[in-house]
């Protein structure tokens, strides 16, 4: 099985406060990994560090992505290499048209892959097809990026971009937070349609709810900056039943 991501002993801090204290994780092609854990455990930090957010300092460890040193790459380089982060809080870009933004993003990635850039018509066709996957209101594409979008619309827009950019590694940072049940279902449905043999997913979530719709191959629990437990989807159900206290108590014991 082809490995996409190899994280070894990853340590990271924000403003001199250690958050990740040694993460080990391997994601192979075609796998969906769920990362769960209580608030402040380091779940979102892991996502940010993988995407290259400079607010976080890497203090140790290695991250190999498709055999390359991920931590050496710039943010945009990681993205062009196929690392996609669906933001927990998608950013608004006033005055920047969604289609123009997509065009630049898609074509930078395509260029990097040695593919021909898409023209306006091809891009529109592709956008229409992908928007249908996650039931995105196509009128949103007329607006500035994320501007005036509801919370749910922003999250759908993230998955829509995921579909457009066709990454190798997709990281979803609490995509389910703030979603009502219908939005949750269509976002999950979109993700399921995007599951392929080549693509790996890292799904960060606080609640088990999302995993009813996106069934993971592996579930990991982060607490205190380490993965303290790994298992299959049953682990998520157990967590739902017994709460995060149970993991922490077990750790302390």
């Amino acid at each position, binding site marked *: 099985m082809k490995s996409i991501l190899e994280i070894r002993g990853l340590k990271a801090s924000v403003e001199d406060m250690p958050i990740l204290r040694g993460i080990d994780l391997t994601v192979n092609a075609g796998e969906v990994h769920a990362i769960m854990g209580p608030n402040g455990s380091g779940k979102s930090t892991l996502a940010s560090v993988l*995407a*290259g*957010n*400079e607010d976080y300092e890497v203090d140790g460890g290695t991250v190999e992505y498709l055999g390359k040193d991920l931590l050496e790459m*710039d*943010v*945009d380089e*990681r*993205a*062009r290499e196929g690392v*996609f*982060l669906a*933001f927990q809080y*998608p*950013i608004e*870009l*006033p*005055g*920047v*048209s969604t289609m*123009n*933004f997509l065009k*630049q*993003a898609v074509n*930078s*990635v395509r260029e*990097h892959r040695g593919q021909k850039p898409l023209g306006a018509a091809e891009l529109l066709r592709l956008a229409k097809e992908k928007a249908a996957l996650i039931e995105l209101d196509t009128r949103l594409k007329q607006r*500035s990026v994320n501007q005036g979008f509801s919370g749910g619309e922003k999250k759908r827009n993230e998955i829509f*971009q995921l579909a457009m*950019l066709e990454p190798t590694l997709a990281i979803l940072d609490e995509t389910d937070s703030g979603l009502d049940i219908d939005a949750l279902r269509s976002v999950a449905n979109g993700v399921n349609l995007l599951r392929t043999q080549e693509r790996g997913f890292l799904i960060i979530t606080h609640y088990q709810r999302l995993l009813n719709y996106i069934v993971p191959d592996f579930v990991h629990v982060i607490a205190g900056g380490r993965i303290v437990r790994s298992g299959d989807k049953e682990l998520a159900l157990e967590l739902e039943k017994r709460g995060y206290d149970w993991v922490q108590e077990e750790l302390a014991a």
Partner: protein
Amino acid sequence: MNTDTQYLHEVAESDYEHGWSTDIVSDTIPKGLNEDVIRLISSKKNDPDWMLENRLRAFRHWEKLAADTDKYPRWAHLQYPEINFDEISYYSAPGSKPRYESLDEVDPELIKTFEALGIPLEEQKVLAGVAVDAVIDSVSVATTFKEELAKLGIIFCSFTEAIENHGDLVRKHMGSVVPHTDNFYAALNAAVFSDGSFCYIPPGVRCPMELSTYFRINQAGTGQFERTLIVAEEGSYVSYLEGCTAPRRDEHQLHAAVVEIIAHKDAEVKYSTIQNWYPGDNEGKGGVFNFVTKRGICEGTGSKISWTQLETGSAITWKYPSVILKGDHSIGEFYSVAFTKGRQQADTGTKMLHIGRNTSSSIISKGISAGRSNNSYRGLVRINKGAENARNFTQCDSMLLGDRCGAHTFPYLEIQNPTAQVEHEATTSKVGEDQMFYCQQRGISEQDAIKLLVSGFCQEILAKLPMEFAVEARKLLAIELEGSVG
């Protein structure tokens, strides 16, 4: 700060693309200003007597102002060395022959200049459908499309030709909106102006094409003083475009233009500018001092004047395109994007003077500062006593690229009528690191991300430019943001 800083540094220090000069033989008069110089300019222009009288009157007024350096206008938020008006040549014409009957007579070097500027006259004649009047240094070189326009009764020609062939029209309107007594630079311009453009739209005529003028200062040590006069008769419409560049020179060059617009009943004039004069180097050496007086009067009921500008050039920009809303129900608009970098300084804005009833004005100003530049918005909204139900909306947004630049806002409101409704909004923002991260996480490079965010910031103004001008404006902004790394 992170890697943004490095790129912003490069942005702030990127190069001027129009900094070449053309080797053409030119007829330039000696430096300095006195009555003899005024008479010399006047005779070179073959002025009628009344024009010489006008010039001399303006010159005497200016002399009085200039005699007392305390009276130089210093209220703007600008710092620059005292201009030595004796070190400037006030007239320079390409070649010895002051005017050209056709393009064939024009120095091929000059044609190359225009081609390098992206305005091949010949091609534009045929393809673009834009009538172009090009003013290089002080003289109008060629005006395309004149004949087609003439069929509709539209006059679009150089100011010199206008004085010669339409003397009465020019005499009637020139100085009626910006009198020579208006300010220091308006007085100087009225005394020494050498050419410019004149445009007359007869009653009920909708000008079928964009009228366009390109200005360029080529000769070293010269000033450029052009005048534009636009008269729109009842029920007419015209969209007018103005673009400017200058070669890179170590000394400062002075540009002091005057633009006057008169809109009669139900007439509409849309005036768009892309100003890209040489801004000087990053240490503030060289660059154009741009002191411009632009004003329109909505003379008739229901008339409308709209100014849209993209200001990216000049070392110093001092410019307040204004509208006098005299006619009832008249409308004044000012939409501006001012981008400064290096050591550039811009103090720009507008005046909306509400006199008639039910008049309304809109002001949207976007300032972007990079490098060590300073960018100020200065605006006056005055509602006179008799201006019942006047409305104004003002929005000033500033964006800072980096932490060594400045953005300032100086709004003035004078309201003498209680029925007025005036709104003012102002914001200042930095290009957010979170926005940059979001763009880059989608594979967009740092440079492209800044371009995307800045053009998003200016979007609502750029959208108001005529189509072909908007494309040019976007390109120019992109070039300005490009950085020396390319």
